[in-house]
């Protein structure tokens, strides 16, 4: 009996519910949704992440370092005489004394390890935080 009922109700539903028209939202619905989406896209473009040091500047810094290293190797300069050589190309006359003026304080080993770990964590965390902000 239940199977008959089910079959009957299904047949009646197919005949009636299957012929119904869909409801229409108010006029301009699509345009309103697109406006919301466009506003969101524009908002997002206002907050595009821009690095403090641009790619161009990084390239210049990298080029300067490579040039300096190449110069050192080419001239066969020993590291301890770099300040003298630099002073010879007249960056500054006091640079030759740099080696004597800058002296590292005698820091405890644990402090150096701690600072190194902190620096490492910061370098790892920055890209992670950046990605999280971008995702949100």
């Amino acid at each position, binding site marked *: 009996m239940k199977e008959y009922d089910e079959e009957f109700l299904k047949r009646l539903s197919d005949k*009636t519910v299957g012929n119904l028209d869909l*409801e229409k939202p108010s006029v301009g*619905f*699509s345009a309103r949704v*697109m406006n919301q989406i466009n506003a969101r896209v524009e908002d997002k473009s206002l907050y595009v992440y821009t690095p403090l040091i641009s790619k161009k500047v990084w390239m210049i810094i990298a080029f300067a370092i490579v040039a300096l290293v190449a110069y050192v190797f080419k001239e066969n300069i020993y590291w301890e005489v770099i300040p003298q050589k630099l002073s010879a190309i007249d960056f500054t006359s006091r640079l030759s004394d740099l080696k004597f003026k800058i002296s590292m304080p005698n820091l405890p080993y644990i402090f150096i390890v701690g600072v190194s770990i902190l620096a490492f964590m910061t370098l790892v965390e920055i890209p992670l935080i950046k990605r999280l902000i971008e995702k949100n």
Partner: protein
Amino acid sequence: MNHLDDFKIIEQVLEGREEAYAVLIERYEQLVFTLALRMLKNREDAEEASQDVFVKAFKALNKFKGEAKFSTWIYRITYNKCLDMLARIKRQPAVADIEELNHSNFKEVETVIDKMELEERNAQIKKCIESLPEDEAFLITVYYFEDRSVNELVQITDLTESNIKIKLYRARKRLFTMLNKILSEEKKTDL
């Protein structure tokens, strides 16, 4: 064909042509709105929910893997959105008793329905669907507008196949119980 076209449109949107998304909205706005209306029973709430559904779908478009049809995916978003809104509204619908319709008056209901004008019949059926419990109204609407597939309903709602079949049976029985009641009352007033 729509399935394939939907993918092409999604690709265009993901490539940066956001305006192509309007095609998807126009393609699905009526069904999404109808589903929201069937569940929320209020045009303003349904329109708000439908807008949110399309904006949410746009935001998550890069997560759409294409394993299911876009329609299945957006109906799932609609279903969940409406459930969220219903939880917020906490409205208790008046539910018709499904035991009132019995085997003896089946034929009578069918004869009256057959005699009715199409427009009037559709209006009465719509009225009855709107009075169904939210989940039953949603299921019966998707079932009749989307290939009559129980499997698709499983993907949309996460309910089991047997649960959906029971809910569809209940929805049909409740629907014609209500219709029978309306028709009987009309008959009484005519006399």
